[in-house]
């Protein structure tokens, strides 16, 4: 599944994660897996809308895991370690007024995925890859 995410479009943010959630429900996956994927993806979408000019999301569903790749052409993350800390945020005031920008985005994505990698370059963009296992690998 492929999705385009456009800048500052809060009304459409959540469409990609909703679509994936519906697809996973149809496949009859366990509710906790669906919830984790939906939360991780929605946080990623919101991050793109807040920070990046544009982006795209690719989701691959296999019998064993769900792979999410979120690519944006945003400003990049200056200090990934700092950005991973709960409560740290660079979101602007208007975003905070909407109820976002609590500095929980990346921590929530990490918490709800089994594997997560962040590849970022200042001025070029950020790629976040997340994987949620349907059956925990032994």
């Amino acid at each position: 599944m492929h999705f385009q995410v456009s800048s500052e479009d809060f009304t459409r943010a959540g469409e990609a994660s909703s679509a994936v959630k519906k697809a996973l429900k149809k496949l009859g996956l366990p509710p906790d897996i669906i919830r984790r994927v939906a939360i991780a993806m929605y946080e990623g979408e919101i991050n793109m809308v807040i920070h990046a000019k544009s982006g795209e999301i690719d989701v691959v569903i296999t019998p064993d895991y769900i792979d999410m790749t979120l690519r944006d052409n945003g400003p990049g993350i200056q200090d990934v370690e700092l950005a991973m800390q709960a409560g740290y945020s660079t979101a602007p005031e208007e975003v905070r007024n909407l109820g976002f920008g609590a500095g929980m985005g990346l921590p929530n994505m990490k918490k709800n995925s089994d594997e997560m990698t962040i590849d970022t370059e200042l001025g070029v963009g950020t790629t976040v890859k997340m994987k949620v296992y349907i059956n925990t690998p032994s």
Partner: protein
Amino acid sequence: MTVSQLAKHPSFTPAYLASEDHTLTGVYCCDLLSVAMGRAPADSAWVTVMGNLNAIAVAVLCDVPLLVIAENMGIDEDARKKAQEEGISLFQTELSVFDAALIIHKALSA
């Protein structure tokens, strides 16, 4: 207790009652959507002052069937539309977040 049973409580005014009824198993309070997203339990009533579109989106993702907007805060028109599309019930109340949650908690415990 179901959403439609709670809708009859005099403290709440249903702004939209979804056709599919749900049994509520708890109540949750939070206004920061990113926090709520990670923590709002499925099948709970979520009490908040955020009556915007994004709150509905978070409710959908968390399998929360009912959003209670406290402190007489408004509900955006696009949020109402989205709630109807997604089958999320919406109540309004003049009570504070705490008082609204307490009433729901007592109703669920009765």
